[in-house]
């Protein structure tokens, strides 16, 4: 599981809490490239905590 702040600091070297939804937007775009068109989704959201990379079927993924 990767918290959003960890993603921000690892990917963009932003080592402070940002009050924007940059990470969400970036994940959305990443998802569009990685998961769109596949039944098995790889990028999953853990609400309130972060994201996790694991194979789940479309139906089981979090809303």
């Amino acid at each position, binding site marked *: 599981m990767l918290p959003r702040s960890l993603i921000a600091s690892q990917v963009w070297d932003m080592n*402070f809490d940002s009050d924007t939804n940059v990470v969400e937007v970036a994940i959305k775009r990443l998802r569009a490239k990685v998961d769109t068109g596949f039944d098995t989704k790889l990028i999953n959201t853990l609400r309130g905590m972060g994201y996790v990379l694991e194979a789940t079927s479309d139906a089981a993924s979090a809303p």
Partner: protein
Amino acid sequence: MLRLLPDSITARTSVLFAGLAALVFTVMGLVIQASVNHHFVEQDQTVITGKLELISNILQNATTTDNTIRIQRQLRSALVGHHDLVVRVQTRSGQDIFMTGHDRLPDAAMMTATTSLALRSWSDGTTAYRLIVTDILMSNGEPGWRVGIAINTLQHARFLVAFERELLFIGASGLLCMALFGWVAIRRGLKPLQKMAVVAESISAQRLHNRLATETIPVELKSLAHAFNAMLDRLSDSLERLSAFSSDLAHELRTPVNNIMTQTQVLLSKPRENDDYREVLYSNLEEFERLARMISDMLFLAKADNGLIIPHREQVQLASEVRAVLEFYEALAADKSLALQASGQAVVMGDALMLRRVISNLVSNAVRHARANSVIAVRITTQDQQARLVVENDGETIPEHHLPHLFERFYRADGARQRTEEGVGLGLAITRSIMVAHHGNIEVRSQKGVTHFIIKLPMA
């Protein structure tokens, strides 16, 4: 240690006044006394030498000793009206032929004769005289008479004693008057200070509106009064901001706490499915995150206020920081169809992480308020050892009266405390704190739909 002067300015100055007056009076008294004495001596000299001349004239014109009676008559008429004079005339053989005055000039005083016309002082213990005793030759050149003219100085001495007593009395009362007047004058002069003390006493956190009336205060105390009033202004201003801030803070904290509480209460009011519990916990988690972020921001600001934010000093390439920040916001900007542009370069001394946070806050602001399909430009320029970084975006003009307050905590230009998903209104306050810690500054301009945030930093 022995204290020579009392603590009170009034008493101290009065004492000094009195001391000074005593000195002046003493010197004055001595001078007056000396000059009066001198005046007496001169007067006596004039009188005595004048009479001596008269007498010697009469005696020299007398031919023989036979007409003693005529001489006596002539002398008496010459000396009429001079009761204070004591005159004694003797023949060569020591026989008195003439005497006048209240008392008889003692034989001892008549013993020595001088030729000079200078007055001698003579005293036998009971009486004191200023006198001239001289020999007068007859018209044929032979020694004829011995004449003594004297003035009893006892009178003078008595007068001088009385005069001295009078002087002393006047001096002492003058001294008292001076001390008293000084005391009164100083007390009156220091009245404004007491007024100040009264005003100062009446001031408390709830009553900071009292001010000194500077127009009635003497010039010497004006600057103090102005400084005092200015201090009160600053205090009242700070206090107002502090209380506004704490009420804002309470409000900002109450909203998320209320949300969490309400959701939890509703959830617990009846049995639920597992998914429902999870849903509310997630929602609570989001509120907690929001609270946590606000608290850490508040902590940062509190530290900055107390001068505890001490930036590292390293060379920072502003252009590369801008590039990193723009990269971070790229996705967000693309969502709103915004173009991000950067230009310029400057090296400054500072804390890279904090400066990046500044740039990030400004760009995030710009992205939030930018009109769709517009351009956000970050420009770096240098001038006079100063680096300027401008973040420009198209969007609604911020009304003029909001501009000075934008960097205050929790300040919202839209007035209504509407709760947006992003931010609690501390971003720009933090930005300014960082700039202050870097000895730089920040300003904002907003005109005709274009908003500029400008930061200035000393160059490395």
